[in-house]
């Protein structure tokens, strides 16, 4: 059983399981959306005293922070107990493209050139990772949600604003991948 679960899970299993997570949260009285936690954390830190956007009853959102805490624990659980012994199966074209940008592939889920402390504390690494994080946080709040809230929850509810947001996310990703990466890497 553990051996079977340790294999990478195919998309047609994983996708419906993500939808079940969304439905479970709905059933428990919540709503699937991870980035709204960024707003809660700002409110908990006291941002509501200065900015009205953060002045709301964040205590009603604690369940979502607990959900994200669970997701972190789940990630650890998978990495330690259900680790895939084989390199992940990435298309050769992507690997070659990335190699020409100086980003190697060693079978892990993340490139070690980018996600390490030394890179973070270099000027380039600091700008890429901190600015990147800033854009993700700012953009997802501005759009009123991220991939989980808009692409899964919003689109499942057939919300047009979510469709617009998801198209925007996708165009943004394409621009960064094809035009910005060759400039910064």
């Amino acid at each position, binding site marked *: 059983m553990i051996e079977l*679960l340790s294999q*990478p*899970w195919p*998309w*047609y*299993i*994983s*996708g*419906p*399981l*993500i*939808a079940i*997570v*969304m*439905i*479970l*949260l*709905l*059933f*428990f*009285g*919540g709503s699937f959306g991870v980035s709204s936690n960024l707003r809660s954390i700002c409110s908990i830190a006291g941002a509501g005293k200065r900015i009205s956007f953060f002045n709301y009853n964040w205590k009603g959102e*604690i*369940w*979502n922070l*607990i*959900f994200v*805490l*669970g*997701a*972190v*624990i*789940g*990630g*650890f*659980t*998978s990495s330690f107990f*259900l680790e*895939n012994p084989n390199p*992940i199966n*990435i*298309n050769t*074209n*992507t690997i070659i*493209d990335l190699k020409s940008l100086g980003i190697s*592939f060693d079978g892990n*889920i*993340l*490139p070690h050139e980018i996600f390490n402390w030394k890179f973070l504390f270099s000027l380039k690494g600091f700008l890429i990772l901190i600015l990147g994080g800033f854009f993700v946080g700012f953009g997802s709040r501005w759009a009123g949600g991220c991939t989980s809230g808009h692409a*899964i*929850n919003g*689109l*499942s*509810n*057939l919300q047009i604003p979510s469709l617009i947001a998801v198209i925007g996310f996708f165009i943004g*990703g*394409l621009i*960064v*991948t*094809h035009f910005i990466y060759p400039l910064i890497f």
Partner: protein
Amino acid sequence: MKYFKFLITGIFFGIVMTKSEAISWYRIQEMFRFDSFHMYGIIGSALITGILFIQIIKLFNLKDISGKKN
């Protein structure tokens, strides 16, 4: 403990995201380079299942555990 169910759901979500490799930087790169169906499959099948569930909830007027309608 009223938050326990959210913790368990979160743990489940974390395992699904890790095992599906949807958290992988390389998988996201593959998606934006149109080199693999994997991520589109995950999002697409999540969406189809999600729409189906939501329609069932609406059709049968199902309520959440506090009795609130969605």
